């Protein structure tokens, strides 16, 4: 007798916990053969709000953590991804990918994670400055994370798109709420499990499944979200997000790249969700001695 397979219940990820949606609703995206992928959580607006609360709560300690430590945690994500490679490949194939493409996508996701892990304690040095003001002050500018970032993951990939636009955000000390690809949600849910076992504190990344159409608005009108990163290609939806963002002057970034290309990653994606802070302090200027004696 063949063994009866244990099927997975796909959950969402909020504040380090794996609840089903509070709404009790689900949807069933289909694979290429028209077979349901599973009963995926159809997250509600309330789930989005809960996730934003979790992200805000996690922001303080994540942004103030040593950059080196954030780098270690991102590297740990890569390690965990490597260990669960086969699962991701299987899910990508289940969602319509070829074996070769699936392998490439997972490998690149791991490489990209290592890439951003390395940036954690370097972008600050590259992009900050000491400013030679003309008065007797010491003046410097540093980068600080923008805050809570709403992320709308690319629709056309299950893993690489999500990884590519989420990592630069948390690399820079932001926390985020991610809406996964509507029709390719499996890897997002499994990726949440990777995050959960990678020392990423609960609330730093929150991942919801559901329809963009329903969740966009709550995310982009919410007064405690500081920025939106849009990975989709629906220009009307983007316009709506930009209009909603006016409520609290959210920064909106939209990327349309082929995430499967090796060079679809860079420093300037990190700096997009950073603010520049400039600090002034007077320099005591009394007495006659100078540095040349």
């Amino acid at each position, binding site marked *: 007798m063949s063994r009866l397979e244990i099927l997975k219940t796909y959950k969402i990820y909020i504040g380090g916990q794996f609840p089903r949606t509070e709404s009790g609703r689900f949807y069933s995206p289909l694979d290429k053969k028209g077979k349901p992928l599973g009963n995926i959580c159809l997250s509600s607006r309330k789930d989005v709000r809960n996730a934003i609360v979790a992200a805000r709560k996690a922001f303080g300690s994540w942004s103030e953590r040593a950059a080196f430590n954030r780098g270690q945690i991102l590297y740990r994500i890569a390690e965990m991804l490597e260990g669960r490679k086969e699962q991701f490949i299987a899910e990508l194939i289940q969602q319509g990918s070829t074996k070769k493409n699936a392998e490439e996508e997972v490998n690149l996701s791991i490489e990209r994670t290592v890439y951003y892990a390395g940036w954690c304690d370097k972008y600050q040095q590259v992009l900050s400055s000491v400013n030679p003001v003309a008065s007797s002050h010491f003046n410097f500018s540093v980068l600080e994370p923008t805050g809570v970032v709403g992320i709308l993951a690319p629709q056309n990939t299950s893993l690489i798109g999500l990884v590519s636009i989420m990592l630069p955000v948390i690399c820079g000390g932001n926390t985020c709420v991610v809406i996964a690809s509507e029709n390719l949600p499996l890897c997002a849910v499994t990726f949440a499990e990777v995050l959960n076992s990678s020392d990423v504190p609960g609330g730093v990344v929150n991942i919801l499944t559901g329809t963009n159409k329903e969740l966009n608005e709550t995310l982009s009108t919410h007064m405690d979200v500081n920025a939106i990163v849009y990975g989709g290609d629906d220009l009307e939806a983007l316009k709506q997000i*930009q209009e909603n963002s006016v409520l609290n002057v959210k*920064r909106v970034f939209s990327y349309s790249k082929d995430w499967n290309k090796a060079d679809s990653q860079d420093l300037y994606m990190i700096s997009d969700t950073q*603010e520049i*802070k400039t600090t002034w302090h007077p320099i005591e200027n009394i007495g006659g001695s100078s540095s040349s004696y």
Partner: protein
Amino acid sequence: MATKKKNTEHVSDWNYSPSLESTSHLNLKKRYDLFIDGKWVKPSSGVYFKTINPANEEILAEVAHGNQDDVDKAVKAARKAYTDVWSIMPPAERAKYIFRIARLMQERARELAVAETLDAGKTIRESRDIDVPLACNYFFYYAGWADKLEYAFPNRKVESLGVAGQIIPWNFPLLMAAWKIAPALATGNTVVLKPAETTPLTALILAEIIEESGLPAGVVNIVTGHGDTGAAIVNHPDIDKIAFTGSTNVGKIIQKALAGTSKKLTLELGGKSANIIFDDAPIDQAVEGIVNGIFFNQGHVCCAGSRLYVQESVADLVIQKLKSRMDSLYLGNPLDKNTDIGAINSKEQLETIHKYIKIGKQEGAEMYQPKCSIPTKGFYCAPTLFINVAQSSVIAQEEIFGPVLTIQTFRTVDEVIQKANNSPFGLAAGVWTDKGSRIFNLSSKLRAGVIWANTYNKFDPTSPFGGYKESGFGREGGLHGLNSYVKLS
């Protein structure tokens, strides 16, 4: 100046003799046209509006009201200049034009300072020592970047955007024009700039300087007018970039108007900045910092330190010293070199400030104003402070943009960080303490774009300026200010 003193308790008997800056050196025209494509052209509507001296309500000049057609003409000129000349000019040559503008401004600095004081109501000391020299320095600073842009963005090719539409406020008219025009030109863009309707004169003198500099026609166009002129710039389809400095409300309208377009946007909006005094601060210096933080430029400063937080143990002392310092402030003719507090920029703004003072009283806060005589003509507001203000109070939450300070007290560091960050704005903050470690703690936890530690309201072309949260996005000044005017590939 102040003559009749009723309350000798607060005001000393002696006064400085007036020391008026002469206006003889300034030759304002009776009427100014629009500066488009290197020429002075009449507004297509034929309409002119008057700009007055807010210190005495006398008319200074008539200024053209540019409408949509004029804006379109200016954008066409800017596009042509961009395509034909400015974007293909070797960057080092571009730099030389900008250096030349900086030098010409320095040469005409006195004239610019007097014009600024007359048109804006700000004190001549400030125009002469801060606004005008800084404006020159922004041009001088950004000129040198023109041929070095690759060094600012590692691993990237840097390109200009095209035509930049720029809308500036009335609180630092010439300085804001410099903040906008200098980096735009250095990065290879051409410009259509609209000065504020109450303060167009120094931008028009700057247009004369630009004309004199030989800058190719159409690279900089100055279109004066009202809100409709600004809206025409924002909504013009052939503009690639909008830079706006002004109120958060108007900023939001602009952000919404640009939704769904590919126009790049920077917003430098309002603020309600916290100024925090700890018990170990050098109190006398801190009091000077409080005064400079809120009464500089009559409080018409987006980053004004308008929310004062004083540690409870020194609150009585700080408030007493602050009141006594306020008693010695001179309010009056902005052209007088003794004057500390000049005129409110417009009647409309004075009414706004009075509205908030009334709200403050209604909310039950305790108000203090020194006994100073207010000139009968012109728009003036005595320096004002409110004690016993609640965090939720309207006057502690909303931007007043006038010489009105609210005072709250605190006990612990954590408490004051929470109170300071409890605002939709995030433009600036001040911290006064002798303890270095505490400065670094606060400067990293306060969610604001500029932190002044043991100082306040300092500006420099090398120093990036701009806000967090609803105070806007993008930076002006310094290397980071270049980013607002380039695309990277």
